[in-house]
């Protein structure tokens, strides 16, 4: 369970990323966060695994107070939370398998990572994660040789290899075309449902959000302005989240028609 209480984030340059947030996310939920860029979506996601520290307030993740963790405590916390990125964040020059094994870093002894020899159990885990996103045959390809959609699937496999309780996905489809976006979203949804992993996804496109989310959270200027089931989120709700009327850029399908 993830629980924010009166949580605030103010960046050193004065920008407010999160303001007085009260929010509880239960285990196994599939939550989509929507909002304009700069509304604090990334801040919320990165606060959960401690990449962005709270300036005030409280944040409990699976019973641990994130604000009170030291460096090794944070690493411990992060090892149980998978993260998926907009830009994939793969090491292009190395193999898909090595990229997925990055998800095992916390568990593998340092000397083994230094010489690049991972335990067979971890390799097996990585292979199964690749199988789960149906890209196992690319295990020894260089990451740079893959298409965008394939790369994001490797990104998901890397997160899965952590055997996480929570997956955070920061704009996972923003660099992908519409059909590939749906593939990636379906993988995320399936994984969440079948494995019971709490999944929190930042999205820009509203149609994608309503299509996949169990629950939608709307942010505006760091403040929670909507929280409800995906079916409740109609055009009016989105206009209130965005603070303006919707345009073709806000949905993926019209976008694709251009």
């Amino acid at each position, binding site marked *: 369970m993830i629980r924010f209480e009166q949580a605030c984030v103010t960046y050193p340059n004065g920008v407010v990323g999160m303001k007085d947030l009260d929010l509880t996310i239960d285990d196994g939920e599939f939550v989509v966060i929507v909002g304009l860029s700069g509304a604090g979506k990334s801040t919320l996601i990165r606060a959960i695994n401690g990449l962005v520290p709270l300036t005030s307030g409280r944040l409990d993740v699976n019973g641990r107070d994130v604000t009170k963790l030291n460096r090794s405590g944070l690493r411990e916390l992060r090892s149980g939370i998978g993260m998926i990125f907009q830009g994939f964040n793969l090491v292009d020059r190395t193999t898909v*398998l090595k990229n997925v094994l990055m998800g095992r870093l916390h568990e593998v002894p340092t000397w083994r990572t230094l010489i690049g020899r991972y335990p067979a*159990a971890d*390799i*097996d*885990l990585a*292979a*199964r*994660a*690749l*199988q*789960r996103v149906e890209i*196992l*045959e690319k*295990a*020894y390809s260089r990451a740079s040789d893959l298409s965008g959609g394939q790369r994001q699937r490797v990104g998901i496999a890397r997160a*899965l290899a952590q*055997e996480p309780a929570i997956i955070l996905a920061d704009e996972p489809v923003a660099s992908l075309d519409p059909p590939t976006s749906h593939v990636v979203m379906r993988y995320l949804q399936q*994984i969440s449902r*079948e*494995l019971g992993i709490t999944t929190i996804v930042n999205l820009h496109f509203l149609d994608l959000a309503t299509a996949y989310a169990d629950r939608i959270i709307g942010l505006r200027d760091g403040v929670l302005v909507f929280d409800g089931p995906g079916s409740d989120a109609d055009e009016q709700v989105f206009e209130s989240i965005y603070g303006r009327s919707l345009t073709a850029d806000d949905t993926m399908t019209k976008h694709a028609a251009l």
Partner: protein
Amino acid sequence: MPAPPAGTVELPRRPLDVFRWVFGAGAVVLILWSLLRIDIKWSRLWDAPSDLWTIGTLMFGRMESGDIGKLSGAMWESIAIAWLGTIIAAVFAIPLSFLAAENLVGRPVAWVTRQVFNILRAVPEVILALAFIPLFGLTPMAGVMAIGVGSIGTLGKLFYEIHEGIKTGPLEAADAVGASRLQRMRWGVIPQVTPEMTSFLLYRFEVNIRASAVLGLVGAGGIGSDISQALLFKDWGTAGLGLIIVVVGTIIVDTISGAVRRRIVSGRQSATTTTEPELAITGGVLG
């Protein structure tokens, strides 16, 4: 983790990277051979740190401030040798570099000129200094000549690479108005290449300062002579001060020259970006 259960998934066959293995094995063999066959008493390596420490304390422990004037003068002489050498090299390298650019002259001419550069580049400056000392005596002029001749090759190579990277539009324009070969150079090429060439010239000057500081060690003038004399006569304080002056002098000149270079390069918009990484590879660090 999930379906599929443990152990049921088989990875594809791992491709064998032959090149990497051969390369790695070759390197290991070469290193082991060198390590075992080289004529070094490795036991002496254990004494090296304490030897160094002793000399270090002698060198930097009691420096003679009275030597500052003399050694600074010698450092200035090293800088002078580097500058004049660079200028002499440029005088020869600039015209030759045009003859080595394939887009400006025919391929045979370019090939011959490049071989000249390659030969000159291969000779270490110190060897040139050895050759010039019998002719010029133990004077700074031997150093100037060594640096000058030694830099023609590298400067020429850097320069013709610049020439070959120029935009062809202005050349075409020059041809279109019926320019002669010389006019074509003057108006079509030179305006494009001057900033980069100046920048490389300064860069070479920085490299040459390190070279000229060294030339004195074999007797060709500059601060190297003073340091090698001091080391020879176990005049540690002077040697230590000389070393500090070399480092400080080099860093000062690097800083000034580097600032001018950056200003020259930033004064231009595009094109220059391609030459920067080149700079790193071709030996930003020869010294």
